[in-house]
């Protein structure tokens, strides 16, 4: 007969303020197997844990039920607590009377109390049928996969590599560098983005612990913490990067010209190309869609006639051009994965009131970065895309695709206020005759030296801030008329601008959801990835061994992304500092006496964790591979003979919870 101890946490007033704890304790006393009840102001605090520890020993308890916050919060904390008192950590059951009770029934204290009592009763019932569980140990592969070669991914890769673990950095584009490479200057320090980024990119390329896979994508992921099996698709570059020296002959001599993605189609690039001068690796890929040779081949297929071209092949001094090169799949094992897939800018074509692309001189903040950049399409000269004239009146429009539920984006993109201030300053630096106007709703400058920076834009550079959201932009002759309100004076404002800059917000990179589904991590309604805990586990996911960094979690600026890259790396190195991993013992079991050998379970198991064995009497039956099993319980529900069961969630335990509701 079990001796269960019930401990109810007040969680300050979070629980105690709504649930009548004394009533719950009173009721718990009379529950079967309950030998001891007590309450704590904060069970998770040190005195709280101590009192539980002592109570277990003094009252020879062998089961513990704690009524407190969600098990997703503190289950592990309390498992350790009971373990120190000499009980198997899995003889603990938590009744979630905060998230599932006091916090959602604050409007009805009595009902909340009754519910809390029943939740505790369910927990007690389950606890009675808990069994001690023992975890196993498995080895781990001390190699890390970093997905995304932006600043966050770069930082993560370097930190792990410097801790002397191997890293594979996978980047979808032909070069690493991400968005930061496209920026001109950075706020609030105004140092040159490329200048501070380039050295890091080179470090990545040269680091003996880092394998760089650009122009590659993660295709599928199997396995679990310590032992992930990942297939990476290496897209055909049509250039042998081992032979290639990056001399540049090919991309200088290539005759094709096509809009440059890196310059947001404001400049052109060749068909065999590197996206930008500081690209890493400094080795080209062939864009087969625009390459004359591949167009020729395609035409030949269709029986059409086009001139062939293989200048690059002829001129390459090391004959690195390989038209026959195919896509290939690279399969690797990793112990941990860091996801740093970053963001893309909001597509403003849904803003019909702003012209949705109708007006050439209405550009986005990122376009302006390219125009400001010395390595940009205009060599750093800011000109109107339409006629190449120098704009003298520039109007910024904030919150395009941010704080706008009507356009399906309720969140604040966080960086726009600052980059607008920066760009206003830079424009004035480029041409003192420029007058900048910024339409804003709020100036969000919460960050070190941010406020001071925004003030400089106003005081020293004469940027005129107008408090109001722009309603309409239209063309009047060569001018763009921007209609807003100055809500401080309460009157409508119209400004005739030469150039309009839309501060488009951040959204997750294309393909984020598909990647999340491959990795089995969760994402929110805006498709940003969800961290394990928004405050306390900001770079972990709910899947062990998979970590997050940068703006794939939500809008972030450069320093935050760098910090998160480092943080994720620290988590990975901590993981790799262990030689074995202890596995979760909550796995499936199969009763050989009941198993009929239908082996349906082997078919449904998503992890191929069920092997077969032959019994002495010659029957072939199922056998769970406990290191492979992730404890989903699919086999249990599909076993017709009740042979399969799941430790920690056994049929008996769950039924006990159900039936306890009607005792």
């Amino acid at each position, binding site marked *: 007969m079990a001796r269960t101890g019930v401990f109810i946490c007040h969680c300050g007033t979070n629980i105690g303020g709504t649930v009548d704890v004394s009533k719950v304790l009173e009721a718990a006393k009379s529950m079967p197997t309950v030998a001891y009840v007590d309450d704590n102001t904060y069970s998770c605090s040190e005195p709280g844990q101590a009192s539980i520890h002592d109570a277990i020993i003094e009252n020879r308890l062998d089961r513990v039920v704690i009524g407190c916050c*969600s*098990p*997703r919060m503190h289950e592990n904390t309390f498992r350790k607590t009971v373990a120190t008192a000499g009980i198997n950590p899995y003889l603990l059951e938590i009744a*979630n009377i*905060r*998230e*599932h*009770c006091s*916090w*959602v*029934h*604050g*409007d*009805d204290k009595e*009902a*909340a109390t*009754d*519910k809390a009592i*029943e*939740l505790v009763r*369910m927990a007690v019932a389950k606890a009675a049928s808990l069994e001690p569980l023992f975890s196993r140990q498995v080895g781990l592969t001390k190699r890390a996969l970093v997905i995304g070669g932006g600043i966050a991914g770069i930082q993560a890769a370097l930190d792990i590599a410097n801790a002397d673990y191997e890293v594979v950095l996978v980047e979808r584009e032909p070069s690493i560098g991400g968005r930061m490479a496209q920026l001109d200057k950075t706020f609030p320090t105004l140092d040159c983005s490329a200048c501070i980024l380039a050295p890091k990119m080179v470090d990545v390329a040269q680091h003996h612990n880092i394998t760089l896979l650009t122009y590659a994508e993660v295709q599928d992921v199997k396995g679990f913490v310590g032992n992930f099996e990942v297939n990476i698709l290496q897209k055909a570059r049509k250039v042998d990067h081992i032979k290639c020296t990056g001399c540049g002959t090919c991309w200088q001599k290539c005759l094709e010209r096509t809009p440059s993605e890196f310059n947001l189609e404001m400049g052109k690039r060749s068909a065999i190309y590197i996206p930008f001068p500081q690209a890493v690796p400094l080795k080209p890929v062939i864009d087969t869609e625009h390459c004359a040779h591949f167009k020729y081949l395609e035409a030949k297929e269709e029986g059409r006639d086009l001139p062939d071209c293989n200048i690059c092949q002829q001129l390459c001094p090391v004959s690195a051009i390989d038209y026959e090169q195919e896509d290939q799949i690279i399969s690797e094992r990793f112990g941990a994965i860091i996801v740093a897939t970053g963001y893309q800018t909001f597509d403003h074509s849904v803003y019909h009131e702003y012209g949705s692309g109708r007006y050439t001189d209405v550009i986005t903040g990122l376009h302006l970065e390219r125009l400001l950049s010395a390595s940009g399409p205009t060599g750093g000269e800011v000109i109107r895309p339409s006629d190449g004239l120098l704009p003298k009146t520039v109007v910024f429009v904030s919150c395009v695709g941010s704080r706008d539920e009507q356009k399906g984006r309720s969140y604040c993109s966080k960086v726009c206020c600052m980059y607008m201030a920066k760009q206003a300053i830079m424009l004035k630096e480029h041409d003192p005759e420029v007058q900048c106007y910024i339409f804003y709703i709020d100036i969000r400058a919460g960050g070190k030296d941010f406020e001071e920076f925004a003030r400089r834009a106003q005081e020293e550079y004469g940027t005129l801030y107008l408090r109001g959201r722009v309603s309409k932009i239209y063309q009047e002759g060569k001018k763009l008329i921007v209609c807003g309100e100055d809500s401080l004076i309460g009157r409508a404002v119209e400004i005739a601008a030469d150039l309009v800059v839309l501060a488009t917000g951040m959204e997750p990179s294309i393909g984020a959801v598909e990647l*999340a*589904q491959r990795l*089995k991590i*969760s*994402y*929110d*309604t805006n498709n940003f990835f*969800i961290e394990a805990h928004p405050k306390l586990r900001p770079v972990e996911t*709910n*899947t062990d061994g998979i970590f997050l960094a940068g703006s794939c979690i939500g809008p972030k600026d450069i320093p935050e992304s760098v910090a998160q890259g480092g943080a994720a790396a620290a988590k990975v190195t901590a993981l790799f500092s262990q030689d074995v991993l202890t596995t979760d013992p*909550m796995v499936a079991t199969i009763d050989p006496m009941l198993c009929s050998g239908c082996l349906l379970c082997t078919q*449904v198991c*998503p*992890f191929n964790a069920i092997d077969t064995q032959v019994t002495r009497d010659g029957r072939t039956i199922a056998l769970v591979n406990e290191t492979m099993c*992730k*404890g*989903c*319980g*699919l086999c*249990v*529900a*599909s076993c017709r003979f009740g042979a399969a069961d*799941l430790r920690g*969630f056994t*049929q008996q335990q*769950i*039924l006990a*919870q*159900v*039936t306890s*509701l*009607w005792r």
Partner: protein
Amino acid sequence: MAIEYQPKIVGFLCNWCSYAGADVAGTSRICYPPNIRIIRVPCSGRIDPLLVVKSFQQGADGVLIAGCHPGDCHYTEGNYYARRRLALLRPFLEYIGIEKERFRVEWVSASEGKKWAQVVSSFTDELYKLGPREMTLAKGTG
């Protein structure tokens, strides 16, 4: 004496999406009716139809099963199995005299606290409308 009808709902929630979603409802203090009793399971694919039938047999007025959205399962495909399996269960429940409205399967993600509250509220309302079950197969008293 007559006690007013308080429907009791048994909810089986997958640990990774729906249970977390219910937690979010808590952290964002979204109130909903107190009639549901949540049982945490690793995956909606773990839910054996027997558990549902047992719940009704015990006297549950409604059973709610919530898991990850299709495609988002932490175990890749558990919720697909759940969906098919529980679809088959429905006609059986009707056969044994339980209105189909009393059994719901919903997809609630780890971020959908609001949706969770709405699901519970609407289900509870519906059960109030349906009124108490005639305990055809119940051994419990309800």
